[in-house]
């Protein structure tokens, strides 16, 4: 096994396929997460376009009922688990060590493993379209519809096994990242000097660590119900379908904050940089993020207001749900405080960041509206909810991610995404997003239920559905503009300096793109905005010693092998148990090899 120890100038970038397959470098892993996540985002977007085309006119006939049900289920699963979560993980992988001044994450091979297991789970879930039909029970797969009696095909097995595998991957990644944040910080980087992005991701990691086991139990029970004769969710045998809802939402409500907090973190990085002043109320923003995380575990039943919860639970969950508006509001106002009095430089990253504030607020406010159960009894399962979720998920999560992409692109590639195309992308997306999703509020108000593949004319739904569909094509166009921008930029010469935006955080202290070992010299942190502090106090960057031995973990193919084993294990459960056995053998063999592999 090659070692990467050597004198500095000799560290070379060899990018053959094999380097990528065996890499344990957090930047390469982050890149792989990013590319996969984006590809799945496109796929899920394509599914959305088919959905919108079907709904453009009454009694649409683009797809049939069963296919439609698969499409919206897979659209949601793909967006959430294969799109946004990996895109968040991509940034975190890439920038966590860079932002806290470390050379890598705490467990580089575990990091690679998380990626390969993710990819396996993602391919498994997606392949359900080819093998035996995709899951079609909605992304929350309510029992007993998801039980074997009512969903006899393989779709829901793909759902359960796929999510179990993806959960394993997320759990490993979260453990790894949490340890890294706690333990790998550069000298002087106290917890209250961590960049807000890192703080938000730390909250995300804990949300996942504490909520994934709950969905794991629910999925295990579903698998047992479907395959091993238990009756957890079969009412006729004493089972209770409401138990599934509790377990699912105890996971899935924290999950929605898993989707939004990374973008809140990104925006908290971008806004101060281009306002040319420090983040307003750092401590408040951090504590608000933690409060959102904690409260997020106490609100799940607001998804179940119509299930006959009873008076007292409705009141309790109303109170806890509405309480979340307070910490979220604190963030919004602090971001506005950051803009206030600034000298705002509007480039594409900043356009996205500022529009995030506006769009997320709209989504958050509709959230507070259906936090009131009597109101929700009219809105639940209508397009009003669909409007809410897309304002927070698209206007929030996706817009935040694009902000981060434009902001960090020069750091990651050494190249600037084109600003002119970027602004076209922004405006098309901003306008398209509002045209697509705002009318859904009106549709919900006039009673259009969600998850319907067809509707009659003369219910007053035609106009706004058509408008929404047109908007979704505009969104597709905006994505194409972005793709053009991306590929065109990648053909240009790298021109970015170390810190082209004059940003305050540590990732900008190293070259663009960063060297394999991240930092020649681990920086010393003297302030919450270290690079601004150094700039203002005339502190020079420490020159690297002429000869240096930097220890980097060697590449390893065991993560890939284990990922493959886990995939086989899952495929085996769905098809032939012999494959599972093979998978187990591969996993055990690779863990053994992993343990004995030298890391020097």
């Amino acid at each position, binding site marked *: 096994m090659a070692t990467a120890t050597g004198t500095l100038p000799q560290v070379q970038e060899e990018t053959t396929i094999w380097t990528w397959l065996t890499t344990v470098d957090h930047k390469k892993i982050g890149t792989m997460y990013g590319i996969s996540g984006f590809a799945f985002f496109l796929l899920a977007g394509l599914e959305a376009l088919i959905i919108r085309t079907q709904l453009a006119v009454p009694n649409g006939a683009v797809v049939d009922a069963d296919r439609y049900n698969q499409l919206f289920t897979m659209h949601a699963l793909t967006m959430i688990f294969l799109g946004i979560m990996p895109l968040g993980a991509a940034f975190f992988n890439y920038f966590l060590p860079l932002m806290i001044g470390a050379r890598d994450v705490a467990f580089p091979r575990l990091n690679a493993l998380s990626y390969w297991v993710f990819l396996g789970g993602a391919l498994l879930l997606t392949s359900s379209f080819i093998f035996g039909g995709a899951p079609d029970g909605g992304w929350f797969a309510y029992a007993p519809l998801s039980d074997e009696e*009512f969903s006899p095909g393989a779709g829901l097995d793909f759902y359960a096994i796929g999510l179990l595998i993806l959960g394993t991957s997320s759990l490993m990644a979260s453990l790894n990242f949490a340890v890294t944040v706690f333990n790998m910080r550069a000298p002087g980087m106290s917890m209250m000097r961590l960049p807000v992005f890192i703080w938000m991701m730390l909250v995300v990691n804990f949300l996942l660590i504490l909520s994934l086991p709950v969905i794991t139990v629910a999925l295990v029970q579903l698998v047992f119900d479907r395959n091993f004769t238990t009756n957890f969710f079969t*009412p006729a045998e004493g089972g209770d379908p409401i138990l599934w809802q509790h377990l699912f939402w105890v996971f899935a409500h924290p999950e929605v904050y898993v989707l939004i907090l990374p973008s809140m973190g990104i925006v908290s990085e971008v806004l101060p940089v281009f306002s040319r002043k*420090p983040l307003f109320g750092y401590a408040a923003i951090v504590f608000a993020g933690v409060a959102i995380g904690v409260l997020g575990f106490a609100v799940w039943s607001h998804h179940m207001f119509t299930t006959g919860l009873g008076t007292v639970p409705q009141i309790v969950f109303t109170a806890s749900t*509405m309480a979340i508006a307070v910490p979220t509001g604190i963030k919004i106002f602090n971001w506005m405080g950051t803009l206030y009095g600034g000298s705002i430089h509007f480039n594409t990253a900043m356009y996205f960041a*500022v529009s995030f504030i*506006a769009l997320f*607020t709209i989504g958050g406010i509709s959230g507070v509206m259906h936090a009131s159960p009597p109101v929700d009894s*009219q809105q639940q399962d209508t397009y009003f909810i669909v409007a809410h979720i897309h304002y927070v998920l698209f206007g929030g999560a996706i817009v935040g991610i694009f902000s981060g992409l434009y902001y960090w692109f020069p750091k990651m590639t050494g190249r600037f995404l084109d600003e002119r195309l970027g602004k076209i992308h922004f405006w098309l997306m901003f306008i398209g997003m509002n045209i697509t999703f705002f009318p859904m509020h009106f549709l919900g108000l006039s*009673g259009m239920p969600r998850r319907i593949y067809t509707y009659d004319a003369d219910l007053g739904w035609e106009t706004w559905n058509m408008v929404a569909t047109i908007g979704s094509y505009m969104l597709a166009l905006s994505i194409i503009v972005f793709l053009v921008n991306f590929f065109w930029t990648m053909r240009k010469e790298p021109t970015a300096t170390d810190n082209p935006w004059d940003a305050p955080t540590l990732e900008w202290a190293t070259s663009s793109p960063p060297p394999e070992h991240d930092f020649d010299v681990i920086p010393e942190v003297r302030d919450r905005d270290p690079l601004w502090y150094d700039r203002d106090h005339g502190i020079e960057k420490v020159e690297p010693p002429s000869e240096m031995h930097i220890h980097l973990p060697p590449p390893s193919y065991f993560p890939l092998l284990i990922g493959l084993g886990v995939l086989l294990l899952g495929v085996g459960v769905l098809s032939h148990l012999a494959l599972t056995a093979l998978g187990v053998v591969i996993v055990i063999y690779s863990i053994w090899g992993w343990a004995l592999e030298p890391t020097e």
Partner: protein
Amino acid sequence: MRPSPRAISLTVLSLAIVLITTWLIWIAWDATASDPMTTLAPLSDNADAVQGLYNFVTILAGIVMVGVLTLTLAFAVIFRERAGHEPQQIHGNSRLEVLWTLIPVAIVIAIALPSFSVIIDTTGDAPDDALEVVATGNQWWFEFEYPGLDVTTANELHLPVDRAVNVELRSEDVIHSFWVPQLSGKVDMVPGHENRLWFTPHETGMFLGQCAEFCGTSHANMRFRVFVHAPEDFDAWVASQAADAEPAQGDLALAGEKIATTLCAACHTIRGTNAVGQIGPDLTHIASRTTLASGMFENNSENMAAWLANPPGEKPGSIMPNLNLNAEQIEQLVAYLQDLK
């Protein structure tokens, strides 16, 4: 920092833009109140209470939205990069931060308290003299029974005006949800659970309902109708529904009756005949219904014939199978069923 005239005029401009947008939104919002399934024009007592809260929440939400959008827009334009302007490096301001923690707290309390009181009112017990109805969700149709009145029907619920109705919600298979937007918010029909819902309609007319919980292939086609009558009309309806099925008249219908009481008897009940199946809707008075297959089609001979020829073709996933009836049988059945007033 004292606001400059420029800042003030830009803020006013931003406010104007946001207010105009909000006004346009309001027009579209309000326009939905005249749609057939609107959630904004309640015609029952409970819905009135909900609606008061709904409007209040909407107005507060609107104010928050206008505030945040205006200031964000205003700051974005006022503080655009200008040559020579070096922003002051402020890290925070405790007084402001406390203030903008307290404002949301106040708004949240203002929304929460009336919510609690409406929850308590609407989840309480129905009045004693309420009409009892049992609504059962099936994939993909609704059954309505009136205990004590000997009436069982499907997909069309008839109610007297100005009398409370207490709907007991059950499910035979998966979770469905009972929702008539103009009369009441929804409550789910969960197998194994006893949910219920009560309201007092205060206007006569026909109201559209829809299953609101995803329940499989034909969830979209699981609709129903509620007819609210003057009390005497309701009593007449009950009397006609409680009667047994009309015996078949004429050769065609007689032949149809024969098929119906054999081939269809395993699934359908036609009171007064030996058809007592429980799987499909009660057909005793099928001809008195305005729609077929849970609100999908107008109830007329043509649609009935099409339905009998191939139910899953007409309604995806239908539990009623294609029985491969020939044209003659269909004609006979239609003749018979269309007489079951």
